[in-house]
C-alpha cells in the first residue's frame, strides 16, 4: 500500500464486516519520541482466541472467494519495515483493536497519505457505523466524530453538499494540527 491511510481504510472495512457500530481511529504523531501510532478500535463481533492467533498469517481469512487474506499481514509488515511494532487484541463480543507503531523518520515508513478520503469512504460505506477520528500531532489534538456531527446537523450525512463540506473541514483542521510537519 502506498499510504498508511489505505491500510486504515482496509482494516476499518474489517470492522464494518464485523458489524461494528463505532469505529475509533487514532493517529498520533510525536516528533520528540520519533513515533507514529495508528489505532483502529471497533465494537464489532470480535474474534475468538484461536482465530486471533492466526490472524496475522496471510493464509487466514474469513472471506470465501479465496484462501488468503492480506489486510492485516500487510499492515503488520508496514509497521515492522519501519522499525515499529504491531498488535491486535480481540475477544468475541467485545470488539477488536488493531494498533501499529512506526518510527516517524524511518526511511521505509509509508506516508500517512489522504486520511480525509479514507474517512469519507468510511462515512459513505458505513451508514450504520459511526466514525470517531482522533488526530494528534505533537500534543495538538483534533477530534472528528460523526455522532457529534449528526447531533449538530440533526440528521445523517447523506447528501453531497454535507459530505464535501465535511471533507474540506477535516482537511483544514488536520493541516492546522500538522503545524507544518509532513506526516
Amino acid at each position: 500500500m502506498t499510504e498508511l491511510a489505505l491500510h486504515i481504510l482496509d482494516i476499518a472495512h474489517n470492522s464494518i464486516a464485523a458489524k461494528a457500530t463505532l469505529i475509533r481511529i487514532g493517529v498520533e504523531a510525536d516528533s520528540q519520541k520519533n513515533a507514529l501510532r495508528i489505532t483502529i478500535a471497533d465494537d464489532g463481533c470480535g474474534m475468538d482466541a484461536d482465530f486471533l492467533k492466526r490472524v496475522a498469517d496471510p493464509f487466514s481469512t474469513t472471506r470465501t472467494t479465496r484462501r488468503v487474506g492480506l489486510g492485516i499481514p500487510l499492515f503488520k509488515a508496514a509497521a515492522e519495515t519501519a522499525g515499529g511494532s504491531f498488535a491486535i487484541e480481540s475477544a468475541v463480543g467485545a470488539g477488536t483493536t488493531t494498533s501499529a507503531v512506526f518510527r516517524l523518520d524511518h526511511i521505509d515508513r509509508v506516508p500517512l497519505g489522504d486520511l480525509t478520503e479514507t474517512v469519507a469512504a468510511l462515512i459513505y460505506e458505513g451508514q450504520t457505523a459511526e466514525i470517531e477520528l482522533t488526530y494528534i500531532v505533537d500534543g495538538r489534538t483534533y477530534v472528528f466524530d460523526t455522532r457529534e456531527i449528526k447531533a449538530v446537523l440533526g440528521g445523517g450525512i447523506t447528501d453531497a453538499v454535507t459530505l464535501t463540506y465535511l471533507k474540506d473541514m477535516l482537511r483544514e483542521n488536520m493541516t492546522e494540527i500538522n503545524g507544518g510537519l509532513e506526516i
Partner: protein
Amino acid sequence: MKTLEELQAIRDRMKGQMNNRAAADESDYRVVVGMATCGIAAGARNTLSALTQEIEQKRLENVVVSQTGCIGICKYEPIVEVFEQGKEKVTYIHVDAERARQIVAGHIINGKPITEYTYNYAVREEK
C-alpha cells in the same frame, strides 16, 4: 475556518435543493466498487471518490454507489460493477479515476457500456 455551525447554516439555506442519496431499491443503476485489500491496494479509494464526485456533480439521482469486498479477480482491480434494472451486470476492470468518469458519462448518462474496459472484453482479447 470551517465549522459545523457554518455547515448547518448552508444546509438551512439550501433546504429542499439538496439531493439525498438514492436508496438502492429505487434507483435505476447500482454501481459497486470492490474495496477489499486487493482493490484498495490497486487504487479503489480514488475510483470511489471519482465516481461519487461525478455522480454528485452531474446531479444523477437514479444512481447509487456502494462498496463490496473481493470480487475474486484481484489482478483486474480496481473493479467496478454496474447493475442496471433488468439488464445483465457489466464488470469494468482497471478502473482509475479517469475511467470512472468515462463510465459515468458513457454507460450511465448515455446508456452505452464502454466495452473496451469490461472484463469480458479483456478475457476475449487474452485468448
